[in-house]
């Protein structure tokens, strides 16, 4: 791009064209004089199992074209277009449907009117990996047994449905900034990503060597990446038309651009006035190693739910090693059940803009930021607030300091919370409640945090950890087994945290 480079480039082109012309002279003799037909060998191409590939053979038939036949290995081949009989040159197009990964071959034999023949073999490299670089604008199915690579920020655009079958692996290309890959489900688009307890849908990085066969074998963890490696790609963003409370209020609705997506991509808008809006269904999904940075303080969460309505099903979700938050709610009404967040680079659960759904049954393991970072309305619209209940939080491991971070205007009710793995830092508690808890506690909307149990390290008291008066709601228990509140960890068998033994290690 430098001017100097342009000059160099021009010089190179001149030199190259001189060479090209002289080379061209050398080669132009052979083919034209041949009497027998000539089939040119096409360049190698790439294909994916079950996905048709078109292969074009250029042919020269001095004696006049009569017929062609095709044979294939590792797939099936059919001629879908050929020159008219008697033509002296043209193209034969073959459709090849690969059936197995490896090297596929397509051999074409052409016969002329004199019965003379020639043949050529095209080679197709077959994998089960598909690189996606374009937005999804029509209904699309991502099939089991395959790996889909997100070449960048791929958007399911309004009106389109992306269905992801159980067991599918999606891998994001590497990169930060505008380079970050992500799956974005725009407003009025639908994502049907329903995995199963034995066939979860896994979102990870291209660096992850996990294969559909690993998943089939029950190996849900990465064979090569540790569970604390983050920031390798973006994340999953689902946007909807449910109400949000943000500063950009138009005449009837409030809509803004989601964090991490530049405004020039209008697919990043969310918010509306349809509380029952559906963005589809997300169940048995595990999202790993994401959270790439888009700009300062502007990372992508593992799962971002912006203005998502309660017509959407979100259940059984695992987020592992995301550089930003695990799950972040920006307004909306969606209810979410069974969430596990492990090694989040920032907060594990984050809420903003007057989200009014319920989050039920949550396990948080070793956050780096706050376990819960909960905010309220940012515009004049207020909702009935959100509820977070039945949670188990293991605080140690990545330096997290705040168990619950609330503001004066946070609109949350929390209950049945269990905290353990509380640390000691030179005789002081390593984990606390945010200073603003007292402001929150004095709210006039009736929001409250109640019914907490915690394992308190020796020498310290409940009040040391649960600061600002929250200690009144806390009962100290001896260990995990004696807790009577918290999450039901048994539902997380589909997670990496479970199969790796990480949950077992902390007694869950």
């Amino acid at each position, binding site marked *: *791009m*430098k*001017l100097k480079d342009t000059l160099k480039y021009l010089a190179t082109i001149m030199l190259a064209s001189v060479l090209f012309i002289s080379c061209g002279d050398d080669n132009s003799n052979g083919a034209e004089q041949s009497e027998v037909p000539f089939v040119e060998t096409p360049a190698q191409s790439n294909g994916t199992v079950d996905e048709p590939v078109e292969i074009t053979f250029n042919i020269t038939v001095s004696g006049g074209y009569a017929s062609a036949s095709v044979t294939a290995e590792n797939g099936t081949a059919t001629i879908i277009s050929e020159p008219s009989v008697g033509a002296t040159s043209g193209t034969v197009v073959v459709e090849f449907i690969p059936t197995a990964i490896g090297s596929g071959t397509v051999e074409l034999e052409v016969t002329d009117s004199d019965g003379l023949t020639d043949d050529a073999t095209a080679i197709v490299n077959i994998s089960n990996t598909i690189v996606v670089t374009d*937005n999804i604008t029509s209904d699309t199915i991502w099939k089991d047994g395959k790996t889909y690579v997100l*070449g*960048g*920020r791929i958007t399911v655009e309004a009106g389109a449905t992306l269905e992801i079958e159980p067991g599918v692996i999606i891998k994001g*290309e*590497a*990169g*930060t*900034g*505008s*380079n970050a890959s992500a799956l974005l489900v725009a407003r009025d688009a639908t994502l049907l990503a329903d995995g199963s307890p034995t066939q979860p849908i896994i979102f990870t*990085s291209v*660096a992850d060597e996990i294969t559909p066969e690993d998943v089939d074998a029950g190996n849900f963890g990465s064979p090569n990446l*540790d569970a*604390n*490696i983050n*920031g390798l790609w973006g994340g999953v963003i689902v946007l909807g038309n449910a109400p949000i*409370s*943000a*500063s*950009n*209020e138009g005449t009837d609705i409030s*809509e*803004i*651009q989601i*964090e991490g997506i*530049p*405004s*020039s*991509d*209008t697919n990043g808008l969310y918010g509306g006035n349809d509380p029952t809006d559906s963005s589809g269904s997300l169940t048995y999904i595990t999202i790993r190693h994401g*959270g790439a*940075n*888009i*700009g*300062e*303080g*502007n*990372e992508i969460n593992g799962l971002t739910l912006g203005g998502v309505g309660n017509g959407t099903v979100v259940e059984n979700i695992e987020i592992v090693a995301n550089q930003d*938050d695990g799950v972040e709610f920006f307004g909306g009404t969606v209810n979410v059940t069974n969430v596990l967040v492990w090694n989040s*680079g*920032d*907060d594990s659960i984050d809420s903003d803009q007057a989200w009014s759904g319920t989050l039920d049954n949550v396990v948080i393991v070793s956050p*780096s*930021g*706050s376990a819960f970072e909960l905010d309220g309305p*940012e*515009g*004049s619209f207020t909702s009935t607030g959100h509820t977070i209940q039945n949670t188990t939080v293991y605080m140690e491991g990545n*330096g997290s300091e705040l168990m619950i*971070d609330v*503001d004066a205007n946070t609109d949350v009710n929390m209950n049945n919370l269990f905290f353990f793995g509380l640390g000691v*830092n030179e005789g*002081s*508690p*390593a984990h606390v409640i*945010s200073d603003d808890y007292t402001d929150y506690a004095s709210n006039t909307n009736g929001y409250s945090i109640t019914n907490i149990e915690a394992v308190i390290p020796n020498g310290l008291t409940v009040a040391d950890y649960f600061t600002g008066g929250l200690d009144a709601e806390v009962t100290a228990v001896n260990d995990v087994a004696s807790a009577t509140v918290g999450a039901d960890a048994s539902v997380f068998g589909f997670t990496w945290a479970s199969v790796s033994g990480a949950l077992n290690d902390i007694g869950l």
Partner: protein
Amino acid sequence: MKMIKKFLPILLLACSFSLNAFAQKGTLRGTIIDDETAEPIFGATIYIQSEGTGTTSDFDGKFELQLDSGEYTLRISYISYQTIEIEDVEIDEGEITNLGNIRLNPAITELEGVVVTSSRVTISEAAIMTAKMNSANVIDGISAEAFSKIGVSDAAEALKNVTGVSVEGGKYVYVRGLGDRYTQTMLNSVEIPSLDPDRNSLQIDIFPTNLINNMVITKTAVAEMPANFTGGIVDIETIDFPEEPIYDFSMSFDYNPDMHFNSDFLTYDGSNTDFLGFDSGARELPEGAGNSDIPSPISGNSSQEVYDFVNGFNPTLGPYTATNFANYSASFTLGNQYNVFDDKKLGYIMSLTYKSSSNHYSNYQLGEYQNQPDPTAYDLIYATRQNGTLSEQSVLLGGLTGIAFKTDNSKYKLTAMHLQNGESTAGNFFIDNSQDAPGQSGYTADSYNLEYGQRSITNLMLNGVNYFDNTNWEVNWRSAMTFSSMTDPDIRKTAYTLSLTGANPRFNAGAGGFPSRIWRYMDEVNYANRLDITREYDLLDMPAKLKFGGSYVYKERDFEILSFNMQFFGAQPTLEGNPSEILVDENIYGNGGTIYYQSGNPDPNPNAYNSNVNSYAAYVSNEFSLFEKLKIYVGLRAEQYTQRHTGRDALFAQGGTGNNLDNEKVLDGLDLFPSTNLSYELGEDQNLRLAYSRTIARPSFKELSFAQILDPVSDRIFNGGLFAIGEWDGNLRETYINNIDLRWEKYMGLNEMFSASLFYKSFQDPIELVRIQVQQTSSEFQPRNVGDGEVYGAEFEIRKSLGFISESIRHFGISTNVTLVRSVIDMTEQEFIARNNGEKEGQNVDDTRDMAGQAPYIINAGFTYDNAEAGLDAGFFYNVKGETLTAVGGGLFPDVYSQPFHSLNFSLNKRLGEEGKSSVSLNVTNILDDSRDEFYQGFNTADQIFSSYNEHRSISVGYKYSF
């Protein structure tokens, strides 16, 4: 610099030759000008009766005589001018006596000569004033002579005292308070690019005054000037033909008690050529880092390759403290002229300057504030506040060399100039992010910033003037090449997110961020060619001037940002908070650690573009009188302007269906720009002027693009104007401006004048950088045509010696100018809605507001003492610019206003010795110790800091010696 080396031997040869040539005789020189128009008189007779010898003036009005030592009387005459006799002209052996400008009065009746003595001092400031008085259009200016009087060392400082001029941040010159978009900078009458990718105007503080002959500000358009200005054109003219031999050396020291010899000064180890204003490689982009795939644990490279790659980056991420030195500068100028090939003249000039300055701000504050959603909550709440220490070490190296050749009817000038500036910045800030602000999570961080900015301009110009038909035809042509370059190599930011409970600090991507580093490059070439033909003739028996010509300008800019983020492949190392602990061997991936760098640069890069402009212009103008007292100027200019852009957006860069421009036309327009100026002589030395012109402001290179540029310094994202976002249709257009000026001016004694002006400008589709409201978590901006705007203004200027009060205080004088402006712009619907949504109880949001960047008033005042006989000048100078809207808010974001900076300075300049060969100067700046502030302003609540720092007082002493 190469040019200088090449020319040096020739120049040195030239000086030795000229020194010896006329050793036995003395040389007398002077310039004959018309007292009314300040134009040179060609062919005037200079006669020395006692010797029976004489000469005539050339087309520049210049003459030269070789005379023996002694005292002479000169008689200067020219047809239809009053003859003048100059007595007591002293000639010394081997010396040059320069009489400077000698004014001849057009004789109306007849023809009695006047007699003056040669002790009369010529001040070129007065010549500028005469030029100003007689110019067809409204101009203001300042000449080299005035620089030493007001004690300034760079062009920006010098312009501070010119009517209607304000200088932003000591760098950017704005005329009549209009923003950056509406001021144009020229060097020797050809356009010169800015060295800031975000600005239209050049940082003119990089021009040392010893390279400048004068600076002229054109405020009303004339056809020969480019049409793309509205406030004014600043034309910097470099020195050319020296009248007398110059061998000047000067130096100065500038001491700021709050900044200098300060043991808290932050610095870091740069390269060993930093003192020359450029980096020799210490901040170079590591090999291979420019590729889209850089070695990382997941790139498929071996761990050794990753380790080697990370090691390619400079491991310094933080500053250390070291005592700094005061500012100092030195400059050297030499020049001479001599006769060659009979009467032809060859002149040369050469100048070198070096300046080192050091700034230390111990309490530098930055803030991001927001409105609260609740309409009854008035206070602005902060999202992020930063305060800390910022230290800058800057070097400026400049050189200019020129040769000029003059024959009987032509003059040729070749100049080469290079300016090199390097500024190293180190900062340490405490960052406080509040979770109470919408979209913020709340954290504290300790941030270390290292930056280096390297800028240079190289300019080559060839200029010729040819006269025909007894100077009635003048053909002036110039061709200039300017290469400018701006590099910010390795901007490093490392922010430790601090613990709440006293544990070790960490890097948190969602809080203080991960360490990052950025390289930013901009290169621009500019080829400008200009031809101006002037024909002087008589119309209705009065002198008239027909001018026509054209120009061709080609500009091309390359811009690129490369960014890298530190990442950890697994756990972070245990950190203590000192940046030198980070990039140590054992922390790096491939050597047992986890650190690697991730690229933020796709291929092709959306943070890069290339743009070019082809601009052709032709004009014709006529200056004539309908009757004696009325001078009329009419002109018409046509400009064909074609801008092309190569660049793409992020969606295209990732391989998807985004926007990509491949040298595509983004602007293509042929426009006509009429201009007219009427000047009516109300009485002696009194003019009334009326001017109308149409001008244009075009979108810049990056504005007409799909670029998405994350600015590493402000952390703001710039979106090209071609994106359709929300209600903006992506059709970014030029702004057309109609300008009307009315001015009354009265010229009194030497250097005395009074003037009053009114001006009005209407803006059709002005462009402003608009904050995108739908984006709340980051700051995104886009240039858009907003609603139409209007500017009304008044300007007053007085320069007067106090001699009229009492003769005893005749050396005291005042020079003051005041500009008052009211600007109104119609808000776009989006902005009005956003502001309405943020409306507080008791507030009434209007649908108009001030134009961004437009100052409501500018005051430049001086109280001077000027005693030429004693060789003493002194003065107090005061400059202030009114509160100016600098960032347009709306909704969540309050408006930002820059606050008046009350700059009061004192300067004193005294020539020493009988010959006045040396002089000393003393300057005190920022006597009021005012700080530079920009504030957020809300409704019914206290202002909050957007940025604030204090330069404090400084005292400088200078010494100049002429050999």
